[in-house]
Structures are given as C-alpha cells and as structure tokens.
C-alpha cells in the first residue's frame, strides 16, 4: 500500500504493508538511523520519535496511522555540522556512553521542551519514565536536557509547537 509520510518536513511516498511499524519504515525505507530498535514491545523508548508534538514509540505504531501527521526524528533536530540546541547540549555534556538509547531520550525531551521550556528535574524524570538506558548515562542525560532548555531560551527559539497546545 502506498502511504505518504511527512518526516522532518519532507514528504515521502512509501509502498509498504500498512501494518508495518513506523520504526522499520523510518530505518529501512527512509534510511534514517536515528530511531533505534530496542525491544519492539513499547518498553524501552529507543525508538521514540515525535508525532504532531507528542513522543511516540515508533516500534508499536503502525505506519498506516501516520498519513498526514508531522513526524520528527533526531535527524530533524539539526545536523552534525549544525546541531540543534538539544544535539548541542548532548554533545556539550558528553551525554552518551554507547549512545544507543540517546536519540530516543532526545526525542522524548524534544516533545517535553516544546511544551515546557523550563521543566523541573522531576518533570524531566517523569517524561523519561519509559526510556531505559543500560549504560547508566542518566545523570548526563538529565543535565543535557536542562542545558538544552537553557540554550533554547537563550536563542529565543520559538520551539513551542502550535499543535502541541
């Protein structure tokens, strides 16, 4: 079935089984590395992407539900040459060990920061409830998200998503 997907501001036509989880379409059909396969069960957050401003677990989300939605992956936050504030903050704080969980953490944080530019430590922890990290990078992840909020404030970046309301 042909499905039209809006990912990181670009429209893509893909021809896939409509039951295919969004994760496989992002990784294989669109060749985006950011979202990771961690469990395929909605338990770990490695596959998190943002859909219409909300953090969504792409491993348990059928692609057929994604028509007309605005999907953002970690690739949509900036590039290696021009990292966005979240990416810059994670680099600055060296907030990764293996890094496998990190894009999922960043996308959960992205959804949070769009709604709440200055979240408290508790709010960040609550938002990351489903995101697991096995390397124990948690302290740095928290620091990087706080720092990203600051960077966004400094830049006066209009990060608030209208749809997120």
């Amino acid at each position: 079935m042909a499905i039209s997907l809006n990912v990181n501001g670009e429209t893509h036509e893909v021809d896939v089984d409509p039951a295919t989880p969004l994760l496989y379409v992002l990784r294989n059909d669109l060749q985006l590395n950011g979202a990771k396969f961690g469990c395929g069960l909605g338990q770990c957050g490695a596959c998190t992407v943002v859909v219409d401003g909300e953090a969504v677990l792409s491993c348990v989300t059928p692609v057929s539900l994604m028509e007309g939605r605005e999907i953002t992956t970690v690739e949509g936050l900036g590039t290696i040459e021009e990292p966005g504030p979240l990416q810059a903050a994670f680099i600055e704080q060296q907030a990764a060990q293996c890094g496998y969980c990190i894009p999922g953490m960043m996308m959960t944080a992205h959804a949070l920061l769009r709604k709440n530019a200055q979240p408290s430590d508790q709010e960040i922890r609550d938002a990351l409830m489903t995101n697991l990290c096995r390397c124990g990078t948690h302290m740095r992840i928290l620091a990087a998200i706080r720092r990203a909020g600051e960077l966004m404030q400094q830049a006066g970046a209009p990060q608030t998503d209208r749809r997120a309301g």
Partner: protein
Amino acid sequence: MTIVPQDEFSTDRRKGISRRGVLMGTGALVVSFSLARHALAQQATPAPAAPEPPKLPGSLDDARRLDAWIRIDANSDITVFTGKIELGQGIRTALIQVAAEELEVEPGDINLITADTGRTPDEGFTAGSQSMQNSGTAIRNAAAQVREILITEASRRLNVPRESLRAEGKAIVGQNGQTIGYGELVSDQLLAVEAQPQSLLKSPDSLRIIGQSLPRVDIPAKVTGGAAYVQDLRLEGMVHARVVRPPAQAAQLQDVDTTSVEQMPGVITVIRDGSFLAVVAEQEFQAVNAMRVLQQAARWSEDAVLPNQNELPAFLESTKGDIGTVAEDGAGDFSGQVFEATFTRPYQMHASIGPSCGVALMENGQLTVWSHTQGVYPDQEAIAEMLGMNVEQVRVIHMEGSGCYGHNGADDAAADAAMIAAAVPGRPIRLQWMREDEHGWEPYGPAMLIKVRAGVGQDGRITGWNYDLWSNVHSTRPGGAPSLLAARHRAQAFPVRPPNFNISQSGNGDRNAVPLYVFPRRVLWHFVSEMPLRVSALRALGAYANVFALESTMDELAIIAGADPVEFRLRHLEDERARAVVEKAAQEFGWSTDAPANGRGRGFGFARYKNLAAFLAVALEVEVERETGRVRVVRAVSAIDSGEAVNPDGIRNQTEGGIIQSISWTLYEQVTFDNTRVTSTDWSSYPILRFSSVPESVDVHIINRPGQPFLGTGEAAQGPVAAALANAVRNATGVRFYDLPLTRERVKQGIGI
C-alpha cells in the same frame, strides 16, 4: 575433550605466532595483515636471535612491529590501528589522544582503525578494563618510537644533530626552519621495524593532549542520526533474517512445517539445520512476521534441566567439583569475636539496550561478517570452525553495537548471520535479534554463593579470614565453535566443552575474593562445573559479588570492633593509593558517624579492581521506605585512581555509568526461570533502574597519577557500589542483607514490616 586454559583477558593463546605479513608499497608504507597467517609467519618475521625476545610494552609484545600500529602515507596521513573496539567507553577518543600526543600532531590528524581481522593487530578481547593498559600503552610507545625514528631520519637527511630538530605539524622542523614532512620521511620502509623495549615518552609536564577531556569523537554522529552501529549498516541488496530460538534451554526441534512460511510475502527461504531455525525475507517486517508464524509451526521437545531458582545456593553448594586455593597466608585466629555469613548473587544479565545484530556476506567462498563482537580474531576462529572453513576465508570486521558490558549476544548474532549467509550466498544478510532473543539467550553472569568467617581481636584488628566461594567459570570465551549458539543448535552440533578450572592472577570467579586489606586469610574457590544456564563474562566477573561480600563483612567487623567503617578500613590498608581513594571519597562525601536522618543511611565500599588495576572507593546515601521496602540511592560520591588519566571526563563518564548500573544490578536484577525455561524475556520480567529511581547526584573524583601506568576504568565501580548500597541499607535499617538483589520484597520482609 579437553581445552586449553583460557584466561578471558589474555592474548597468550596467540603468543609466539606472528601472523602478520607486511607488504611494502611504493613511496609509502602499506601494511596488510596476511590472511595466510601461519604460512607467512616465518618469512614476515625474521627469526629472533635469542629464543626469548625482549618484553615490549603493552600489546606491542604480541604485535611487535611499529607498522602494525602506525602507518604514515606519502601525504603524511596518519593511520593508527588497534585491535580494541569502541563499546561506549570512549576508547576511540583516548587512543587517538595517546597517539596524537606522542606523534606531536593534532587529534584530528589521526585516523584510527579498530578491530578488523583483515587489518588490525590481534589484541584478543576488548574486556577486563585492559584497553588502555594493552592498546593504549602499545600505541603510546609505538607513537613515541615513530616520532624518534622520524627525527633521526630527518637528522640524517639534513645532516644536523637530532637535538636541533623537533616534531611539529606532521613534520620534523629544524632550527633554521628546515622542514621535512612525515610522509616524505617514511618513504623507505622506515617503520617496518620491530619496536624497542624502551621508548622516549614525553615528560608528564610537556603533555598537551593526554590529560585533557577531549570531547568524544563518536558522540556527534550518535546524536544526529549518523550511521554509528552495525544495526545501521545497509549493504547493496541486503536482506533481513530472524532466528527462531528454542523455547527452552535444552529444547530440541522435533518437527516444523515450513510450507506456509515459505509462501508468505517477501520470504526468500527458511533455513533449518537441527535445532537451528531461521527465516530470510526481503524486508525486515516480513522477516518478523515470518518468524512469528515459524515459531507457531515449530514443535519442540523440552527437558526439565534447570535447577530450582529458589534453591540456587543449595544447588551451587551441592555440586561436586574441584576446590582451588586462591590465597592462603598464615593461620587465622578466631579466638576473639567471630562473624560468619553467607552471601548470594543470582544470575544477572548484560541486558544490552540494542539487541544483538550481525551482518554477513558469503561471496566466492569468502565470508565477511560485521559484528559488535568484543573479539574479532576469536570470533573469526569460532565461525570458521563452525562452518568448516579455513580461518583465511573468514573476515570479521568490528562495528559498534549498543553497550555490551561483557560477553552478550554479539558473537551469537554474528554466528547466526554467518550460518544464514552460508546458506544464501551472494546476498548480504542482516540478522537482528529480537528482545526475547537477547534476554533469553545471552550468556549470563553466573550465580554465586559465598561463605565468610572472620575474627576480630581485642585490639580491633581482623585476626582471621576464611572465605569460600562457589561459582561457575565467569568466562566461556574464547571457546571456539561450541561457544556459539548456532553451532550448538546445528544438526552436527558442537557440544559444549567442559569448563576449565584455572586460578589466575587477575582472577575470574575469584576476582577480588582476596582482600587487599592486611590480615591472615584463606580463600577457596569451589568450582561449579555444571552450567545449567549458559554463562560468560559480565562486567567485573566475580569481583561484583566478591566485593559485595567482602565489604559487607568489613562493615560488620567494624561494628563488632566499635569502629567507624572508614577508619576501620584504613586501619587495615597499607597501600598508599588505596588509602588515598578511601580518604578522598569519605572527605568529598562529608562522611560522618552522626546518626543519619530518619529512613536514611550511609554506606561505604572500596576495592582495587583485580587487586592490580584501578582503585575505587564510594560512599552512598540511601533512603529506605519502610512501608514498601523501596530503597532509593540519594547520592553517590566516589574517588577513582586509574593511573595516568588520559581523558578525565571519559573516566568520569564510565565511572558514573558503572555506579548507576551497579545500583540497578544490586536493587532489582535477577534472571528468573522455571525448570525448563528462562522467564526473564523482556523489560517487565527483568526490570532495571528507571529515571524515577536515579540518584539526585553522582560525583566522581579522579586522583590523577601522571607518569604512572594506565590501569583501566570500566569495571572498578561494580563491586564497591553493591557493598556501599548494602552497607547504607544496614545503616538505615539496622538489618544486614546478604542476598542480591535487595528487592523491595526482601527489604520489606527483612525489616519486618
């Protein structure tokens, strides 16, 4: 069948066989590792005059030529080779720092090639926190020797004294501004020489790059969606595979009707070989769907081969195996007060966040495997053995996976991919494990039982220490084909080899069983050779449970002696560096013996990893919720001395990670099973630490030792944190917990609410 003694972290099995052929290109140095290694060994390496060649620093001792490590081409491009791998510990960055420092170039000038059987030295496994000791030391010395050779060569060509020359900007520069580029200087096989035992290392006060917290070179790609992992590898024409693993440890495939699966959309083939069952499809989701149908179609026999999980300690103690003396020094005196206790640790898992993945391609009889294995050479040998191929026909190239913390499913996924690639030649096969494959089939960290008997004299000093531990071997690699699941499951199965009992200096199940403290001790390892569950190296091996038992006992003895636990440790510690980390951690934590706030407690833990690597002490504050038994770590403060610090932030990052991971192991983790099956198959049946339970702060203080050998960092925190946690719970509740993990139920029951 017997096997050679296997020390997890030694490359000894390859000693004495130089397998490198070095081919010279024109105008520049080109190094290639001969695949016909044995055949070329003699011609490539001139027979040494003396039977025992001199000991060279680090892994240079195994790969003795400078050009095995450093290559400079005609454009002065510098390539450094390491047999070690990045696994999230930042080794890539640290090795680049070491090379750039001694070569007097910038970190950005170094192109680092990590483990690849086609290109890099054989450094065994990336394990045991030994990468800096082995590879870091080798590269640092090689780089220093290369620099000096370049200076000598420039001096010869310019006809000026060496002392008037310096290395700068990839060139040798003279006092009058004469400059010869590195590329120009190496043009005549200059580096095709054996390394020397001694190097002229830069003095500690002249270092520019070592000791700096250089940002990790791998992080930018990882946070922007770059291809960073083997999971991200996409080869032309690549297809997707899944394995259907048996439902139980000893299950055998009886029967499977594959016709319906073969007709599913996209399915290319179903592969069955004994109990090895896999499916290949054009697209990934097609492979997943086919796997699910195949799972339904397969009929297995199951045997009840697993011990009763609730009686694991009794099972361990009941096994009849060899008993080895790990240490015995003087007769203990138990005439004063005696403390006796039994500690246990369950099976625990690596539980990598990304399930294992391997990519393989069989083409013209040559197999290439991309894997996040910790040891490309041992994996190459095992895969070749499994497939009945010559080692030369198999190339294993390392690509990163998610953090592994030891021997996880990486090698098995590589073997699965290889099995499938052999059946579907010409097409790159991407084999991805599902979550239940990783949880259910990775080799676990072994369960352990420890009995301690210790005496304290009138003077408040420990007078005797009898320590008995029961454990499997903690590493089943390198184990050749039988160490690979696919090889065990094939019709022509490679049966599991009986484990080898070996007491070594760095320890295994007995790692850190011997106290660094000074008092008479007797330490025995009751070797458990039965392995009902598959086990192998998990971060810190036996040191995790041994330090938990040892340091828990130290606290109890301090209580008996009426002493402050920190002071009591110092009383028995003579090593200055050990004392320094204990004092530093206590001071930075604000250690005191004042009564803690209600529900709170403080605990301390210390160990020198393997008794010969990094020193680490940690103090924790915990909060215990009496109603629920929930333990939360409020803050952690540690001090670590891992020798000369190449990248302090890297040491902090790894140590923070070790602290948090050990908190997770210690509070939540145990592999569960019934008598046939492992029942920890996902994150709800094997819970780990979540953000809601992460401490408020984790501080790591580094005691840097410029000029001292690198000691490695990655595993030092695991044991001390476990002990500090139990000690803090003891401090908060008055109750000692002897069994890991300290689950809510256990704690609640223990404090009698």
